[in-house]
């Protein structure tokens, strides 16, 4: 349990630095803004208490806000994501629930499940993030395009990155 917490904290620091120092500097035009730090929330274990998960998400968002000078923006999107993770997991859970010790990764759950899980949560996060960022609807379709393209970009990065944090436990 302690190693699990330690591993999550380490992942938090690494992904935060990756987001702030590297991904933030990747410039792919105004429509693709990748936010792979959401992997911090995506990789939290299944057993995490839902309230704890939401509070963790809130603090992940706050720490991003500190770096992006966007007070509350990331926090709001992340809180929403943490809030919805509980329902998404319930919605796409296998027939007999999640096994103990299984982690929300491609290796453990398969690509199809991961696409639904991560894809939905990233879309929710990006929807909240980009619409809150612009805070108006008169650029609705432009923002929508940003949400979709950025979600694809983030998902690809998340998909690659979660192999980095793979614990090596083969079933």
């Amino acid at each position, binding site marked *: 349990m302690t190693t699990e917490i330690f591993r999550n904290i380490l992942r938090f620091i690494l992904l935060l630095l990756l987001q*702030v120092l590297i991904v933030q500097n990747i410039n792919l035009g105004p429509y693709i803004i990748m936010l792979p730090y959401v992997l911090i929330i995506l990789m939290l274990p299944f057993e995490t208490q*839902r309230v704890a998960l939401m509070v963790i998400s809130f603090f992940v968002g706050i720490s991003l806000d500190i770096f992006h000078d966007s007070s509350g923006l990331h926090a709001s999107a992340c809180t929403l994501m943490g809030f919805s993770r509980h329902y998404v997991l319930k919605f796409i859970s296998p027939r007999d629930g999640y096994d103990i010790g299984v982690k929300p990764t491609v290796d453990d759950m398969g690509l199809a499940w991961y696409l639904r899980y991560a894809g939905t949560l990233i879309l929710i996060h990006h929807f909240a993030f980009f619409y809150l960022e612009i805070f108006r609807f008169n650029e609705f379709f432009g923002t929508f395009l940003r949400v979709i393209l950025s979600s694809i970009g983030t998902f690809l990065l998340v998909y690659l990155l979660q192999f980095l944090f793979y614990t090596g436990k083969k079933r």
Partner: protein
Amino acid sequence: MKNLLAFVLKHHFIFVFALLQLICIWLMQRNRGYQGSQVLNSSNAVASNIYLAAANTKEYFALKQENERLAEENTKLRNRLKSNFNIIPLTRFERHDTLYKQHYTYMSAKVVNSSVNKRRNYLTLNIGKEQGAGRDMAVMSVQGIVGYITDASSNFSSAMSLLHKDSKINCQLKNDGSYGILIWDGSDYQHCLLTDIPTHARIKKGDTVETSELSGIFPEGLFAGTVESWEQKQNESFFTVKVKLGADLKKVNHVYIIQNKYKGERDSLEKNSQKQIDD
């Protein structure tokens, strides 16, 4: 009340979510106003230090480009320096008049190289043949004569300074009118010797020594220096006058080049007539 508490406890998940979102909205609201100080921003210690470290690292990787850019800029700025440009003084002060024929023309020039500490000292001037300077033109500064041009390339000319062992310039005492030859004995860059002054000449300390027209190079009456002392050496029937030079050849910077327009004509005439008489 009990029911309310039970309701809150039952749906505490939703309530925590709402609370967190309210905090977020409050933060966003704070961020919008100009007056509202930002509660969270990247100027705090952790974030700014991380950004600083990243910027320093990036700077290190960009050093080469930065160096190149700076070098390029330096080159550009150096090219713009005023000192890189020679002011080409093409202003010859000429005058066309039917009553007076102009004998000498003046050009201004700048000394780009000079020496005083050798036995043969030369000055290099920044104008040459293309600008009209040529051999046997006089060089003077405002304080007094300096020398005369011995050679000219297309853009530069080299002048023999007064401080040269072969420099011989015809000069005269302004008050007395007796003339002699100004030479340099190599002792002191501020003094020259005016030789061959007849012993009957009336010399006073402080007398002006000026050029005479005998040389054919200098116009008559250009200031050369002042008399400091004079002596009659043994077995000589002439005075040797020590002249304090007017021009400080160590400081000379802007000079005038004086062209004698009829020098060639005069020289060939003198040569021909002497040849005819000699023959």
